[in-house]
Protein backbone atom coordinates (compact mmCIF):
# COMPACT_ATOMS: atom_id res chain seq x y z
CA UNK A 1 0.00 0.00 0.00
CA UNK A 2 1.36 3.40 -0.96
CA UNK A 3 1.75 6.10 1.66
CA UNK A 4 1.98 9.82 0.97
CA UNK A 5 1.93 12.90 3.15
CA UNK A 6 -0.32 15.55 1.60
CA UNK A 7 -0.03 18.21 4.32
CA UNK A 8 2.50 18.85 7.07
CA UNK A 9 3.08 22.06 9.02
CA UNK A 10 5.05 20.43 11.80
CA UNK A 11 2.00 20.17 14.06
CA UNK A 12 -0.79 18.87 11.82
CA UNK A 13 -0.14 16.21 9.21
CA UNK A 14 -2.39 14.46 6.67
CA UNK A 15 -1.28 11.12 5.26
CA UNK A 16 -3.07 9.15 2.55
CA UNK A 17 -2.78 5.39 2.10
CA UNK A 18 -3.97 3.59 -0.99
CA UNK A 19 -3.24 2.37 -4.52
CA UNK A 20 -2.26 -1.00 -3.08
CA UNK A 21 -0.82 -3.06 -5.97
CA UNK A 22 -1.40 -6.30 -4.03
CA UNK A 23 -5.07 -5.49 -3.45
CA UNK A 24 -7.55 -8.27 -4.33
CA UNK A 25 -9.03 -7.20 -7.65
CA UNK A 26 -12.67 -7.80 -6.66
CA UNK A 27 -12.33 -5.05 -4.03
CA UNK A 28 -12.88 -1.43 -5.07
CA UNK A 29 -9.80 0.73 -4.43
CA UNK A 30 -10.07 3.13 -1.50
CA UNK A 31 -8.07 5.98 0.00
CA UNK A 32 -7.49 5.84 3.74
CA UNK A 33 -6.59 9.07 5.46
CA UNK A 34 -4.72 9.59 8.71
CA UNK A 35 -4.87 13.00 10.36
CA UNK A 36 -2.18 13.61 12.94
CA UNK A 37 -2.03 16.40 15.48
CA UNK A 38 1.16 16.50 17.53
CA UNK A 39 1.47 12.77 16.92
CA UNK A 40 -2.09 11.81 17.87
CA UNK A 41 -4.08 10.23 15.07
CA UNK A 42 -7.58 10.00 13.68
CA UNK A 43 -8.44 7.56 10.90
CA UNK A 44 -10.91 8.81 8.31
CA UNK A 45 -12.86 5.99 6.65
CA UNK A 46 -10.40 3.22 7.60
CA UNK A 47 -11.89 0.90 5.00
CA UNK A 48 -13.01 -2.67 4.78
CA UNK A 49 -11.93 -5.97 6.26
CA UNK A 50 -10.07 -6.88 3.05
CA UNK A 51 -7.61 -4.02 3.25
CA UNK A 52 -7.10 -4.10 7.02
CA UNK A 53 -3.84 -6.16 6.95
CA UNK A 54 -1.92 -3.99 4.45
CA UNK A 55 -3.37 -0.82 6.01
CA UNK A 56 -2.24 -1.70 9.55
CA UNK A 57 1.19 -2.50 8.15
CA UNK A 58 1.44 0.83 6.32
CA UNK A 59 -0.16 2.83 9.14
CA UNK A 60 2.16 1.62 11.90
CA UNK A 61 5.10 2.95 9.91
CA UNK A 62 3.60 6.43 10.45
CA UNK A 63 1.98 6.28 13.90
CA UNK A 64 1.98 3.93 16.90
CA UNK A 65 -1.38 2.19 17.33
CA UNK A 66 -1.50 3.50 20.89
CA UNK A 67 -1.53 7.04 19.45
CA UNK A 68 -4.58 6.38 17.27
CA UNK A 69 -7.31 8.12 19.26
CA UNK A 70 -10.29 7.88 17.00
CA UNK A 71 -11.95 6.68 13.84
CA UNK A 72 -14.35 8.72 11.76
CA UNK A 73 -16.83 7.02 9.41
CA UNK A 74 -18.31 9.32 6.75
CA UNK A 75 -21.19 6.87 6.29
CA UNK A 76 -22.13 3.22 6.74
CA UNK A 77 -20.77 1.53 3.63
CA UNK A 78 -18.63 -1.61 3.94
CA UNK A 79 -15.73 -0.01 2.03
CA UNK A 80 -15.80 2.75 4.68
CA UNK A 81 -16.00 1.01 8.03
CA UNK A 82 -16.47 -2.79 7.88
CA UNK A 83 -13.02 -3.14 9.51
CA UNK A 84 -14.28 -1.49 12.71
CA UNK A 85 -14.21 -4.62 14.90
CA UNK A 86 -10.61 -5.31 13.82
CA UNK A 87 -9.57 -1.79 14.82
CA UNK A 88 -11.36 -2.18 18.14
CA UNK A 89 -9.46 -5.44 18.66
CA UNK A 90 -6.02 -3.89 18.07
CA UNK A 91 -6.89 -0.61 19.83
CA UNK A 92 -9.76 -1.13 22.33
CA UNK A 93 -9.72 2.49 23.53
CA UNK A 94 -10.35 3.91 20.06
CA UNK A 95 -13.37 6.24 19.75
CA UNK A 96 -15.52 5.92 16.66
CA UNK A 97 -17.66 8.77 15.34
CA UNK A 98 -20.44 8.41 12.80
CA UNK A 99 -23.78 9.98 11.84
CA UNK A 100 -26.57 9.15 14.30
CA UNK A 101 -28.39 7.66 11.30
CA UNK A 102 -25.99 4.76 11.12
CA UNK A 103 -24.64 4.02 14.60
CA UNK A 104 -27.00 1.09 15.14
CA UNK A 105 -26.24 -0.24 11.66
CA UNK A 106 -22.48 0.14 11.93
CA UNK A 107 -22.70 -1.80 15.21
CA UNK A 108 -23.50 -4.81 13.01
CA UNK A 109 -19.84 -4.76 11.93
CA UNK A 110 -19.03 -5.86 15.48
CA UNK A 111 -16.57 -4.53 18.00
CA UNK A 112 -18.91 -4.48 20.97
CA UNK A 113 -20.34 -0.97 20.94
CA UNK A 114 -21.95 1.54 18.61
CA UNK A 115 -20.12 4.66 17.40
CA UNK A 116 -20.68 8.06 19.02
CA UNK A 117 -23.69 9.54 17.19
CA UNK A 118 -22.96 12.84 15.45
CA UNK A 119 -26.05 15.06 14.99
CA UNK A 120 -27.17 16.12 11.50
CA UNK A 121 -25.49 19.51 11.96
CA UNK A 122 -22.06 17.89 12.47
CA UNK A 123 -19.80 18.98 15.29
CA UNK A 124 -16.28 19.18 16.69
CA UNK A 125 -13.94 16.20 16.40
CA UNK A 126 -11.32 16.39 19.15
CA UNK A 127 -7.84 15.19 18.17
CA UNK A 128 -4.87 15.42 20.54
CA UNK A 129 -4.88 18.92 21.93
CA UNK A 130 -6.61 20.33 18.85
CA UNK A 131 -10.30 21.20 18.62
CA UNK A 132 -10.53 22.71 15.16
CA UNK A 133 -11.43 19.62 13.12
CA UNK A 134 -15.16 19.37 12.46
CA UNK A 135 -17.57 17.01 10.83
CA UNK A 136 -19.86 18.86 8.43
CA UNK A 137 -23.17 17.76 6.90
CA UNK A 138 -23.15 16.03 3.50
CA UNK A 139 -26.46 14.21 3.79
CA UNK A 140 -27.65 12.32 0.73
CA UNK A 141 -24.16 12.68 -0.75
CA UNK A 142 -24.53 9.80 -1.20
CA UNK A 143 -25.77 8.25 2.04
CA UNK A 144 -28.83 9.57 3.90
CA UNK A 145 -26.65 10.23 6.96
CA UNK A 146 -23.36 11.44 5.48
CA UNK A 147 -20.68 13.63 7.05
CA UNK A 148 -17.40 15.03 5.76
CA UNK A 149 -14.43 16.38 7.70
CA UNK A 150 -13.19 19.94 7.42
CA UNK A 151 -9.73 20.90 8.60
CA UNK A 152 -9.51 24.71 8.66
CA UNK A 153 -5.80 24.59 9.52
CA UNK A 154 -4.76 22.47 6.53
CA UNK A 155 -7.71 23.72 4.43
CA UNK A 156 -8.43 20.11 3.50
CA UNK A 157 -11.92 18.73 3.05
CA UNK A 158 -12.24 14.98 3.38
CA UNK A 159 -15.20 14.40 1.09
CA UNK A 160 -16.03 10.69 1.39
CA UNK A 161 -17.66 9.52 -1.83
CA UNK A 162 -18.10 13.06 -3.21
CA UNK A 163 -15.45 13.46 -5.87
CA UNK A 164 -14.83 9.72 -5.85
CA UNK A 165 -13.43 8.26 -9.06
CA UNK A 166 -12.97 4.68 -10.18
CA UNK A 167 -9.46 5.19 -11.55
CA UNK A 168 -7.29 2.56 -13.26
CA UNK A 169 -4.34 1.05 -11.42
CA UNK A 170 -1.41 3.41 -11.21
CA UNK A 171 -3.50 6.58 -11.56
CA UNK A 172 -1.86 9.69 -10.05
CA UNK A 173 -2.62 10.60 -6.44
CA UNK A 174 -3.59 14.16 -7.43
CA UNK A 175 -5.78 14.98 -10.41
CA UNK A 176 -3.47 16.05 -13.24
CA UNK A 177 -5.86 16.54 -16.15
CA UNK A 178 -9.36 17.40 -14.98
CA UNK A 179 -11.04 16.91 -18.36
CA UNK A 180 -9.45 13.47 -18.58
CA UNK A 181 -10.48 12.67 -15.00
CA UNK A 182 -14.20 13.30 -15.58
CA UNK A 183 -14.72 9.95 -17.26
CA UNK A 184 -13.62 8.14 -14.10
CA UNK A 185 -16.13 9.92 -11.86
CA UNK A 186 -19.09 10.78 -14.07
CA UNK A 187 -20.85 7.41 -13.98
CA UNK A 188 -20.23 7.04 -10.28
CA UNK A 189 -21.74 10.39 -9.33
CA UNK A 190 -24.72 10.06 -11.67
CA UNK A 191 -25.70 6.69 -10.22
CA UNK A 192 -24.50 6.80 -6.61
CA UNK A 193 -25.62 10.34 -5.78
CA UNK A 194 -29.39 10.39 -5.31
CA UNK A 195 -30.36 14.04 -5.03
CA UNK A 196 -29.63 17.15 -7.11
CA UNK A 197 -30.91 19.37 -4.31
CA UNK A 198 -28.59 17.75 -1.73
CA UNK A 199 -25.65 17.81 -4.14
CA UNK A 200 -26.11 21.53 -4.88
CA UNK A 201 -26.42 22.36 -1.18
CA UNK A 202 -23.14 20.53 -0.64
CA UNK A 203 -21.43 22.46 -3.46
CA UNK A 204 -22.60 25.74 -1.91
CA UNK A 205 -21.37 24.77 1.54
CA UNK A 206 -17.98 23.63 0.25
CA UNK A 207 -17.48 26.78 -1.86
CA UNK A 208 -17.96 28.83 1.31
CA UNK A 209 -15.19 26.85 3.04
CA UNK A 210 -12.82 27.48 0.13
CA UNK A 211 -10.69 24.35 0.57
CA UNK A 212 -7.25 23.98 -0.96
CA UNK A 213 -7.63 20.21 -1.23
CA UNK A 214 -10.71 18.04 -1.66
CA UNK A 215 -9.73 14.53 -0.65
CA UNK A 216 -12.21 11.80 -1.65
CA UNK A 217 -12.37 8.21 -0.47
CA UNK A 218 -11.78 6.83 -3.98
CA UNK A 219 -9.60 8.06 -6.83
CA UNK A 220 -7.49 11.20 -7.02
CA UNK A 221 -7.32 14.30 -4.84
CA UNK A 222 -8.37 17.72 -6.18
CA UNK A 223 -5.98 20.59 -5.52
CA UNK A 224 -5.65 24.25 -6.48
CA UNK A 225 -7.68 25.20 -9.54
CA UNK A 226 -9.07 21.65 -9.84
CA UNK A 227 -11.07 22.21 -6.63
CA UNK A 228 -13.08 24.94 -8.38
CA UNK A 229 -13.29 22.91 -11.59
CA UNK A 230 -14.64 19.94 -9.67
CA UNK A 231 -17.26 22.06 -7.83
CA UNK A 232 -18.40 23.68 -11.10
CA UNK A 233 -18.64 20.29 -12.79
CA UNK A 234 -20.51 18.84 -9.83
CA UNK A 235 -22.98 21.73 -9.86
CA UNK A 236 -23.85 21.12 -13.50
CA UNK A 237 -24.22 17.36 -13.20
CA UNK A 238 -27.65 15.68 -13.10
CA UNK A 239 -27.58 12.88 -10.56
CA UNK A 240 -30.00 10.15 -9.50
CA UNK A 241 -29.75 8.42 -12.88
CA UNK A 242 -31.42 5.15 -11.92
CA UNK A 243 -34.78 6.90 -11.87
CA UNK A 244 -35.62 7.73 -15.48
Amino acid at each position, binding site marked *: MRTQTIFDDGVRRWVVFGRDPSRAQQVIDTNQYLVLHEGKGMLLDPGGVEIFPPYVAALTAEVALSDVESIFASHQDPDVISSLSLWRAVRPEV*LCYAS*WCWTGFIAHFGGGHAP*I*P*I*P*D*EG*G*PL*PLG*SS*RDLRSIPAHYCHSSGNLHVWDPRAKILFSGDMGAALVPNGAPLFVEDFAEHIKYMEGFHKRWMPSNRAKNAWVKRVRALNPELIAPQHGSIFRGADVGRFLDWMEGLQVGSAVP
Partner: protein
Amino acid sequence: MHAEPHADAAPARASTTRLYEVASRVREEVLDIHRSFAPLRTVLGEVGLLALNASVACARLGQAGRTFATVARDLHSTSLDLSSRIDDVEGAFHEAARLVVVWTLAEGQAESFRAAVAAIQARNGRPANMKGLPLWTAEAGARWRSRAVDTRVTEPERLLARLLLAEREKMLGAMFELTYLIGGLERHVDRIRWAAVRQTRYLRVLASIERAHLNDQAGAVDAVVAAMESLDQRISALEEAARDRVLGLTLHTRAFERAQSADS
Protein backbone atom coordinates in the same frame (compact mmCIF):
# COMPACT_ATOMS: atom_id res chain seq x y z
CA MET B 1 -61.00 7.76 15.37
CA HIS B 2 -64.18 9.31 14.02
CA ALA B 3 -66.57 7.28 11.91
CA GLU B 4 -66.09 7.06 8.18
CA PRO B 5 -68.52 9.20 6.13
CA HIS B 6 -71.99 7.70 5.75
CA ALA B 7 -72.28 5.44 2.77
CA ASP B 8 -75.53 7.07 1.67
CA ALA B 9 -74.17 10.62 1.67
CA ALA B 10 -73.08 12.27 -1.56
CA PRO B 11 -69.28 11.85 -1.98
CA ALA B 12 -68.49 15.60 -2.15
CA ARG B 13 -70.44 16.29 1.01
CA ALA B 14 -68.94 13.32 2.83
CA SER B 15 -65.34 14.45 2.22
CA THR B 16 -66.10 18.05 3.19
CA THR B 17 -67.61 16.78 6.42
CA ARG B 18 -64.47 14.78 6.99
CA LEU B 19 -62.38 17.89 6.29
CA TYR B 20 -64.33 19.83 8.85
CA GLU B 21 -64.05 17.10 11.45
CA VAL B 22 -60.30 16.89 11.07
CA ALA B 23 -59.85 20.65 11.16
CA SER B 24 -62.05 20.85 14.25
CA ARG B 25 -59.82 18.43 16.07
CA VAL B 26 -56.76 20.46 15.10
CA ARG B 27 -58.55 23.53 16.45
CA GLU B 28 -59.25 21.86 19.76
CA GLU B 29 -55.70 20.72 20.21
CA VAL B 30 -53.65 23.63 18.94
CA LEU B 31 -53.58 25.58 22.19
CA ASP B 32 -53.04 22.48 24.24
CA ILE B 33 -50.11 21.45 22.05
CA HIS B 34 -48.63 24.91 22.33
CA ARG B 35 -48.62 24.58 26.11
CA SER B 36 -46.94 21.20 25.93
CA PHE B 37 -43.93 22.74 24.15
CA ALA B 38 -43.41 25.46 26.72
CA PRO B 39 -40.91 23.37 28.76
CA LEU B 40 -38.59 23.40 25.73
CA ARG B 41 -38.12 27.13 26.25
CA THR B 42 -37.16 26.50 29.88
CA VAL B 43 -34.68 23.79 28.95
CA LEU B 44 -33.24 26.06 26.31
CA GLY B 45 -32.57 28.72 28.92
CA GLU B 46 -30.67 26.08 30.85
CA VAL B 47 -28.58 25.12 27.83
CA GLY B 48 -27.54 28.77 27.48
CA LEU B 49 -26.74 28.99 31.17
CA LEU B 50 -24.78 25.77 31.03
CA ALA B 51 -22.74 27.12 28.12
CA LEU B 52 -21.92 30.11 30.30
CA ASN B 53 -20.96 27.88 33.24
CA ALA B 54 -18.82 25.77 30.96
CA SER B 55 -16.95 28.88 29.72
CA VAL B 56 -16.39 30.01 33.28
CA ALA B 57 -15.06 26.57 34.23
CA CYS B 58 -12.72 26.67 31.23
CA ALA B 59 -11.46 30.13 32.08
CA ARG B 60 -10.64 28.97 35.62
CA LEU B 61 -8.61 26.09 34.23
CA GLY B 62 -6.60 28.43 32.03
CA GLN B 63 -4.51 26.63 29.42
CA ALA B 64 -5.77 23.20 30.56
CA GLY B 65 -9.36 24.27 29.95
CA ARG B 66 -8.70 25.28 26.36
CA THR B 67 -9.88 21.93 24.96
CA PHE B 68 -13.05 21.91 27.02
CA ALA B 69 -13.84 25.38 25.70
CA THR B 70 -14.83 23.90 22.32
CA VAL B 71 -17.73 22.12 24.02
CA ALA B 72 -18.77 25.35 25.72
CA ARG B 73 -18.63 27.23 22.42
CA ASP B 74 -20.72 24.61 20.62
CA LEU B 75 -23.15 24.47 23.49
CA HIS B 76 -23.59 28.22 23.15
CA SER B 77 -24.19 28.07 19.40
CA THR B 78 -26.56 25.12 19.90
CA SER B 79 -28.62 27.14 22.34
CA LEU B 80 -28.75 30.10 19.90
CA ASP B 81 -29.70 27.81 17.04
CA LEU B 82 -32.47 26.13 19.03
CA SER B 83 -33.64 29.47 20.32
CA SER B 84 -34.22 30.83 16.82
CA ARG B 85 -36.03 27.64 15.83
CA ILE B 86 -38.26 27.85 18.87
CA ASP B 87 -38.97 31.50 18.00
CA ASP B 88 -40.24 30.30 14.62
CA VAL B 89 -42.50 27.73 16.20
CA GLU B 90 -43.84 30.15 18.78
CA GLY B 91 -44.58 32.66 16.05
CA ALA B 92 -46.46 29.97 14.17
CA PHE B 93 -48.42 29.01 17.29
CA HIS B 94 -49.43 32.62 17.86
CA GLU B 95 -50.68 32.77 14.30
CA ALA B 96 -52.50 29.48 14.82
CA ALA B 97 -54.17 30.84 17.95
CA ARG B 98 -55.27 33.93 15.98
CA LEU B 99 -56.78 31.74 13.27
CA VAL B 100 -58.61 29.67 15.86
CA VAL B 101 -60.17 32.86 17.23
CA VAL B 102 -61.12 34.12 13.74
CA TRP B 103 -62.64 30.77 12.87
CA THR B 104 -64.58 30.40 16.11
CA LEU B 105 -65.91 33.98 16.06
CA ALA B 106 -66.97 33.72 12.42
CA GLU B 107 -68.68 30.43 13.05
CA GLY B 108 -70.56 31.89 16.01
CA GLN B 109 -71.63 34.95 13.99
CA ALA B 110 -72.81 32.81 11.10
CA GLU B 111 -74.82 30.62 13.46
CA SER B 112 -76.48 33.72 14.94
CA PHE B 113 -77.43 34.96 11.48
CA ARG B 114 -78.83 31.57 10.63
CA ALA B 115 -80.84 31.52 13.87
CA ALA B 116 -82.16 34.99 13.03
CA VAL B 117 -83.34 33.77 9.62
CA ALA B 118 -85.06 30.82 11.29
CA ALA B 119 -86.74 33.20 13.74
CA ILE B 120 -88.04 35.36 10.89
CA GLN B 121 -89.34 32.28 9.12
CA ALA B 122 -91.07 31.10 12.31
CA ARG B 123 -92.61 34.57 12.84
CA ASN B 124 -93.95 34.50 9.31
CA GLY B 125 -95.30 31.00 9.85
CA ARG B 126 -92.94 29.35 7.35
CA PRO B 127 -90.94 26.17 8.05
CA ALA B 128 -87.23 26.71 8.89
CA ASN B 129 -86.01 25.21 5.63
CA MET B 130 -82.30 26.07 5.95
CA LYS B 131 -81.76 24.21 9.20
CA GLY B 132 -79.79 21.06 9.65
CA LEU B 133 -77.34 21.52 6.79
CA PRO B 134 -73.79 22.03 8.16
CA LEU B 135 -72.55 25.52 7.30
CA TRP B 136 -69.18 24.44 5.95
CA THR B 137 -70.64 22.21 3.24
CA ALA B 138 -70.58 23.32 -0.37
CA GLU B 139 -74.29 22.54 -0.53
CA ALA B 140 -75.07 24.97 2.30
CA GLY B 141 -72.91 27.61 0.59
CA ALA B 142 -74.85 27.22 -2.64
CA ARG B 143 -78.24 27.36 -0.89
CA TRP B 144 -77.39 30.51 1.07
CA ARG B 145 -75.97 32.15 -2.04
CA SER B 146 -79.23 31.67 -3.88
CA ARG B 147 -81.15 32.76 -0.78
CA ALA B 148 -79.16 36.02 -0.71
CA VAL B 149 -80.59 37.04 -4.11
CA ASP B 150 -83.98 35.36 -3.81
CA THR B 151 -86.62 38.08 -4.27
CA ARG B 152 -89.34 35.77 -2.93
CA VAL B 153 -88.00 36.08 0.62
CA THR B 154 -87.97 39.21 2.79
CA GLU B 155 -85.20 41.81 2.57
CA PRO B 156 -83.91 41.07 6.14
CA GLU B 157 -83.58 37.42 5.20
CA ARG B 158 -81.53 38.31 2.12
CA LEU B 159 -79.34 40.65 4.18
CA LEU B 160 -78.80 37.99 6.84
CA ALA B 161 -77.97 35.46 4.14
CA ARG B 162 -75.28 37.79 2.73
CA LEU B 163 -73.82 38.39 6.20
CA LEU B 164 -73.87 34.69 6.92
CA LEU B 165 -72.04 33.96 3.66
CA ALA B 166 -69.34 36.52 4.51
CA GLU B 167 -68.79 34.90 7.92
CA ARG B 168 -68.76 31.48 6.31
CA GLU B 169 -65.96 32.60 3.99
CA LYS B 170 -63.93 33.91 6.95
CA MET B 171 -64.50 30.70 8.84
CA LEU B 172 -63.45 28.43 5.97
CA GLY B 173 -60.45 30.63 5.13
CA ALA B 174 -59.20 30.44 8.72
CA MET B 175 -59.80 26.71 8.80
CA PHE B 176 -57.72 26.10 5.67
CA GLU B 177 -54.94 28.43 6.77
CA LEU B 178 -54.80 26.79 10.18
CA THR B 179 -54.44 23.35 8.76
CA TYR B 180 -51.70 24.39 6.36
CA LEU B 181 -49.95 26.10 9.22
CA ILE B 182 -50.12 22.95 11.32
CA GLY B 183 -48.61 20.99 8.43
CA GLY B 184 -45.55 23.27 8.46
CA LEU B 185 -45.43 23.36 12.23
CA GLU B 186 -45.11 19.63 12.41
CA ARG B 187 -41.86 19.78 10.42
CA HIS B 188 -40.53 22.68 12.54
CA VAL B 189 -41.28 20.96 15.81
CA ASP B 190 -39.79 17.76 14.53
CA ARG B 191 -36.54 19.52 13.65
CA ILE B 192 -36.31 21.15 17.07
CA ARG B 193 -36.88 17.83 18.77
CA TRP B 194 -34.16 16.07 16.81
CA ALA B 195 -31.70 18.92 17.00
CA ALA B 196 -32.19 19.39 20.74
CA VAL B 197 -31.73 15.72 21.48
CA ARG B 198 -28.86 14.94 19.15
CA GLN B 199 -26.83 18.12 19.47
CA THR B 200 -26.90 18.19 23.25
CA ARG B 201 -26.21 14.47 23.44
CA TYR B 202 -23.20 14.72 21.15
CA LEU B 203 -21.82 17.61 23.19
CA ARG B 204 -22.48 15.68 26.40
CA VAL B 205 -20.37 12.78 25.06
CA LEU B 206 -17.62 15.18 23.97
CA ALA B 207 -17.72 16.82 27.40
CA SER B 208 -17.12 13.45 29.09
CA ILE B 209 -14.24 12.73 26.73
CA GLU B 210 -12.72 16.14 27.49
CA ARG B 211 -13.21 15.58 31.20
CA ALA B 212 -11.25 12.33 30.99
CA HIS B 213 -8.32 14.24 29.42
CA LEU B 214 -8.28 16.73 32.27
CA ASN B 215 -7.55 14.17 35.04
CA ASP B 216 -7.96 15.50 38.57
CA GLN B 217 -7.36 19.21 38.02
CA ALA B 218 -10.86 20.07 36.96
CA GLY B 219 -13.53 19.92 39.66
CA ALA B 220 -15.42 22.83 38.09
CA VAL B 221 -15.80 20.87 34.87
CA ASP B 222 -17.40 17.95 36.74
CA ALA B 223 -20.37 20.12 37.64
CA VAL B 224 -20.78 21.08 33.98
CA VAL B 225 -20.58 17.46 32.82
CA ALA B 226 -23.09 16.37 35.47
CA ALA B 227 -25.44 19.19 34.48
CA MET B 228 -25.14 18.20 30.81
CA GLU B 229 -26.04 14.64 31.71
CA SER B 230 -29.16 15.64 33.59
CA LEU B 231 -30.07 18.04 30.78
CA ASP B 232 -29.66 15.25 28.26
CA GLN B 233 -32.03 13.05 30.29
CA ARG B 234 -34.61 15.79 30.63
CA ILE B 235 -34.48 16.68 26.95
CA SER B 236 -34.93 13.00 26.13
CA ALA B 237 -37.99 12.82 28.39
CA LEU B 238 -39.37 15.97 26.77
CA GLU B 239 -38.70 14.54 23.37
CA GLU B 240 -40.67 11.42 24.22
CA ALA B 241 -43.61 13.46 25.44
CA ALA B 242 -43.44 15.70 22.38
CA ARG B 243 -43.29 12.70 20.07
CA ASP B 244 -46.87 11.67 20.92
CA ARG B 245 -48.08 15.21 20.42
CA VAL B 246 -46.38 15.56 17.08
CA LEU B 247 -47.67 12.16 16.03
CA GLY B 248 -51.20 13.33 16.85
CA LEU B 249 -50.67 16.47 14.79
CA THR B 250 -49.23 14.47 11.94
CA LEU B 251 -52.22 12.15 11.86
CA HIS B 252 -54.62 15.10 11.77
CA THR B 253 -52.72 16.84 9.03
CA ARG B 254 -52.47 13.71 6.91
CA ALA B 255 -56.19 13.07 7.38
CA PHE B 256 -56.85 16.67 6.35
CA GLU B 257 -54.70 16.29 3.25
CA ARG B 258 -56.48 13.08 2.33
CA ALA B 259 -59.90 14.62 2.85
CA GLN B 260 -58.83 17.61 0.80
CA SER B 261 -57.63 15.59 -2.15
CA ALA B 262 -60.85 13.55 -1.98
CA ASP B 263 -62.77 16.82 -2.05
CA SER B 264 -61.09 18.32 -5.09
